[in-house]
């Protein structure tokens, strides 16, 4: 009796447990990074910023089924909003700069959502590429504001809470990134499990069925694009605040495409998958490119092919897949039936 009472039986309790587990895993991974790789905190902070971008992409692609190769526009929108406020507005409070990134991402998300969602399927993909290329061209053109191809510099955030300076070792930036990721993860878990999140998952699966329930699809998708933009914008702002520069690469097609690769690698439609995909992919890339500067791209390509072929639902499906293998091993006698 006591055992069945202990086990979480309602879906809410089970989902809460998953959220708590995810938060614990992020905190633990954050601590490991801090203790074991004190010299790589700059790289790890870039991973955290990218993780926010990939989470953001997961919201529209994984949860809503919107195909996009232009998602870095939202990241760049946040990075430039935050960077320009610092460089031209003289704002130094890092939290204000993060808020500016969130707002910049939100606006970019809503605008690009309104454009991209006019189409579906392949035309949608093409529109998304056009959006990020246009954003990039615009940032290049407005070089007086953005620094153009030289990048935007002169971002010098003051100490966090007036106490913790963004020093050369990057501890403050790294811890800020981990904290941001914890907050965003908790918020997005609540979002995807909410009635709105359920509706979005329905939209991904069958738009006609959703319409037959009486739900309006486009407003829901645009709203999700706005939220997604806020998350990506936070990532862009984190990058701007911690590196002190914003370059055109922050809203490039390449960054958009690599975000999609990391999402598929980890498993679209799962927040944990987005995070695992980002971390494993970037760490693997980082390690392999250092160890083997000539063949690292080949190795990354092979890893991707292996994951996509053997784990079509991404790395997040690995535990279930292994459990299945073990179970089959355990009961070989019935294998032929």
């Amino acid at each position, binding site marked *: 009796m006591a055992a069945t009472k202990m086990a979480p039986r309602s879906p809410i309790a089970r989902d809460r447990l998953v959220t708590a587990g995810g938060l614990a895993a992020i905190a633990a991974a954050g601590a490991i990074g801090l203790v074991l790789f004190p010299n790589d905190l700059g790289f790890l902070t870039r991973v955290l910023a990218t993780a926010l971008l990939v989470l953001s992409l997961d919201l529209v692609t994984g949860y809503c089924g919107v195909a996009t190769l232009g998602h870095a526009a939202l990241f760049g929108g946040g990075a430039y909003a935050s960077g320009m406020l610092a460089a031209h507005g003289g704002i130094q409070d890092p939290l204000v700069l993060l808020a500016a990134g969130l707002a910049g991402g939100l606006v970019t998300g809503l605008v690009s959502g309104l454009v991209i969602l006019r189409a579906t399927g392949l035309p949608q993909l093409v529109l998304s590429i056009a959006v990020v290329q246009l954003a990039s061209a615009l940032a290049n053109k407005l070089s007086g504001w953005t620094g153009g191809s030289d990048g935007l510099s002169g971002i010098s955030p003051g100490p966090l809470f007036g106490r913790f300076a963004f020093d050369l070792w990057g501890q403050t930036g790294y811890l800020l990134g981990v904290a941001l990721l914890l907050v965003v993860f908790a918020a997005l878990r609540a979002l995807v*499990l909410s*009635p709105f999140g*359920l509706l979005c*998952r329905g939209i991904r699966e069958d738009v006609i069925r959703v*319409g037959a*329930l*009486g739900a309006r699809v486009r407003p829901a998708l645009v709203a999700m694009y706005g939220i997604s933009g806020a998350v990506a914008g936070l990532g862009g702002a984190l990058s701007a605040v911690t590196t002190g520069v914003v370059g055109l690469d922050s809203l490039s097609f390449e960054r958009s495409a690599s975000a999609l690769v990391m999402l598929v690698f980890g498993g679209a439609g799962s927040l944990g998958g987005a995070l695992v995909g980002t971390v494993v992919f970037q760490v693997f890339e980082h390690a392999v490119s250092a160890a083997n500067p000539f063949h690292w791209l080949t190795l990354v390509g092979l890893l991707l092919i292996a994951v996509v072929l053997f784990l079509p639902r991404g790395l997040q499906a690995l535990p279930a897949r292994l459990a299945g293998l073990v179970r089959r091993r355990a009961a070989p006698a019935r294998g032929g039936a």
Partner: protein
Amino acid sequence: MELLRVEALTLAFGGLRVAREISLALASGDRLALIGPNGAGKTTFVNLVTGQLAPDAGRIVLAGEDVTRMAVAARVRRGLVRTFQISRLFRDMSVRDNVLLAILQREGRTARAIRHAATDRTLVAEADAHLERLGLGEVAGDRVGAIAYGQQRLVEIAIAVALRPKVLLLDEPAAGVSRAEQPRIVAALAALPPDIAVLMIEHDMDLVLRLARRVVVLAAGALVFDGSPEAVVSDPGVRAAYLGSYGT
């Protein structure tokens, strides 16, 4: 009270005339069976009424309001609900979540984005009650894609009922459902509020006789009969329509 009226609904796919000036009215309490040979245009008729397809000509009036140009979802929110001949369900969601989403949508709660979808226990209990009645209590927590097709057909019905329709259009609800499970459909439909209007496309005459008090026959896009279930069996025009469509 009249709930649905279609006037001279007309549609052609290229040269194929799939709806020829179909006129039909449904009143509160009606239980109507729409029958006709394969390819007669029955599903097309439902798609026209719900707005999935736009007619070339004609009018659709729902509870006194002209909805001919209205979007599908807006008609649903006014009480016009349909099921699909081939199940359209959220296969990656649990059976319960499929019904819960319908209820949340009906209650106008799908814009809520903070608390868990299952927070309101009365709504979850309602979803479970719909599933229980259709014999799906056991699989409520299973992924829809993992349950038998016959059970998926029943989930279609649970969703439609959960939307609390004023006018319910059922496209072959029993197709793919085993004989043993058919009484569940009969029971679920019998439990609907008596004042709604139900139109059911069905090939199984047993079910038609059990559920319908009026039958209309569609053949090659045109209505050729409107009368009692008893009369339809012996009507020479209907027989000719079926024979004709199979003969050519």
